[in-house]
């Protein structure tokens, strides 16, 4: 892509994420895992700080599931280290992993509730595994069902619940043993958009109320956008990009991130895109990406007063990600004059926007 980068994007989006700190609940170092000839994980290094929500996004087959399963030892890396609360678990035996897994809750795409147990017994199961007395287990289950808003379903069986209710039970169960870390394996992928929103809101609440660290994997940017603090993009077993969600949204570097963002960022409408040519026409179509200060300022009216000309908003808008304005505007510039366009681009770049001339159209769009 023929993009003109402004320097601010480098500042808000440091390459390679951040360095490891003492508050990391999870630290992965150069994880590799092969299945036959294909590498599911090809050198993944990553940290998750206490209390944050890290979203890992990638297409199916990118290595997300293998990665999340390495964190509780359901999957073993071939090489590399997995530190959970400072302890390397990558070489521990099954028996040593068992008490450790009780520090890590996990929720699943297909909920994985036991059909033969009532809702409260499902929620209480991690405590039963810990060997807690029944009265304590049921008291804790009641407390958690209250937290997820399903108290009246305590005696019901999972089969009688809706998908969203099942996932709420799954969340309550994952929290039963008071974990230090919650792993979410595509927890909303089997749910409709409305239920997805309510489950994500619940996870957000839990993260804030309990200061619970959450690592989630998903293939939907919408999920990342709604709850993650930071995002890591995984492709072919490698982390190709990571950073605060809003900065990755504002300035996606890799092609895979751009493509994953495609669904939720404004795109030039197809009927206009189909009429674009590289020859000068009546109007030039610009794509302007703005974030932070640039998105807060009256950019277009400033442009019009600084550079004479007619600027028409064709498509796009300003979105808010993590309370930061992030926008993409498609603007038609009358005249298609090259010198004029250069002036416009220079102005916008000075205002820390990213500008791309998409092409020209013969008639008005």
């Amino acid at each position: 892509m023929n993009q003109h980068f402004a320097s601010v994007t480098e500042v808000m989006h440091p390459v390679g994420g951040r360095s490891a700190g003492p508050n990391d609940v999870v630290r992965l170092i150069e994880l590799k895992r092969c299945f036959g000839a294909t590498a599911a994980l090809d050198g993944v290094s990553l940290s998750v700080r206490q209390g944050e929500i890290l979203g890992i996004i990638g297409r199916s087959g990118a290595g997300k599931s293998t990665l999340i399963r390495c964190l509780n030892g359901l999957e073993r890396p071939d090489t590399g280290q997995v530190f959970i609360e400072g302890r390397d678990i990558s070489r521990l035996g099954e028996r040593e992993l068992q008490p450790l897994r009780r520090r890590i809750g996990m929720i699943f795409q297909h909920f994985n509730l036991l059909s033969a147990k009532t809702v409260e017994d499902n929620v209480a199961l991690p405590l039963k595994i810990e060997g807690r007395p029944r009265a304590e287990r049921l008291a804790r289950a009641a407390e958690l069902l209250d937290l997820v808003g399903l108290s009246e379903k305590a005696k019901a069986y999972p089969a009688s619940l809706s998908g969203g209710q099942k996932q709420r039970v799954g969340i309550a169960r994952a929290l039963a043993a008071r974990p230090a870390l919650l792993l979410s394996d595509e927890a909303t992928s089997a749910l409709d958009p409305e239920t997805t929103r309510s489950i994500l809101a619940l996870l957000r609440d839990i993260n804030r109320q309990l200061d619970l660290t959450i690592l989630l994997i998903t293939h939907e940017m919408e999920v990342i956008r709604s709850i993650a603090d930071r995002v890591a993009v995984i492709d072919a077993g490698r982390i190709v990009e990571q950073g605060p969600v809003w900065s990755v949204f504002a300035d996606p570097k890799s092609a895979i991130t751009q493509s994953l963002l495609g669904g939720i960022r404004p795109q030039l409408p197809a009927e206009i895109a189909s009429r674009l040519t590289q020859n000068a026409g009546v109007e030039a179509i610009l794509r302007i990406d703005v974030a932070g200060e640039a998105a807060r300022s009256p950019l277009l009216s400033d442009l019009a007063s600084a550079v004479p000309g007619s600027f028409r908003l064709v498509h796009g808008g300003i979105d808010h990600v993590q309370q930061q304005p992030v926008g993409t505007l498609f603007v038609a510039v009358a005249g298609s004059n090259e010198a004029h366009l250069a002036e416009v681009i220079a102005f916008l770049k000075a205002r820390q926007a990213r500008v791309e001339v998409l092409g020209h159209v013969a008639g008005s769009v």
Partner: protein
Amino acid sequence: MSPVLFELLARSIWETILMTAASGLISLVFGLPLGLALVATDRGGIAENLWMNRALGAVINGFRSVPFIILLVALIPVTRLIVGTSIGTWAAIVPLSIAATPYYARIAEVSLREVDHGLIEAARAMGGNRWTIIREVLVPEALPGIVAGFTVTLVTLIGASAMAGAIGAGGLGDLAIRYGYQRFETSVMIAVVIVLIVLVCGIQWAGDRLVARLDHRA
């Protein structure tokens, strides 16, 4: 039918019920762990051990491929060792159990194998060990199938016990052959058939009721 024949019929019913119940219970006690062992030791199982899996499978297939009437005779030394005699109702329970155990193990295996792998993974993720997975996941989740399979095994055992007359075990099959067939007592034959139908229907009905109560899937 004469009062003597009635008494014979009553005794035969008792013998059939005794043989079926005793060998059914034994096949449950040994067959269920065997079925669990088959699933657990298989590829991707909770105690993967392919060598053990193949060995178990071969033994089970071996026993299952021998026709029951032959097993009945071939096991006479074993029966004598366990029960002290090779004839009578109790003597028949040994070969019946030995035939039904691998049969039931295979049926239990099928039900256990159908338990969603995600549930096992969830239990592992909670920090559960193998025993937890068996007790909290595999057996409870497969219970409807385990019970339905046990019903099938009991019905099969009623059929197999008809052959036990060959070693003097008595039972309804023996009564039907000796009186109904060899002595042309048609009324005995009809009575035996009716009793068998009632027995089989009763077991199936009870089994189905139990399965319906246990099944919380869907």
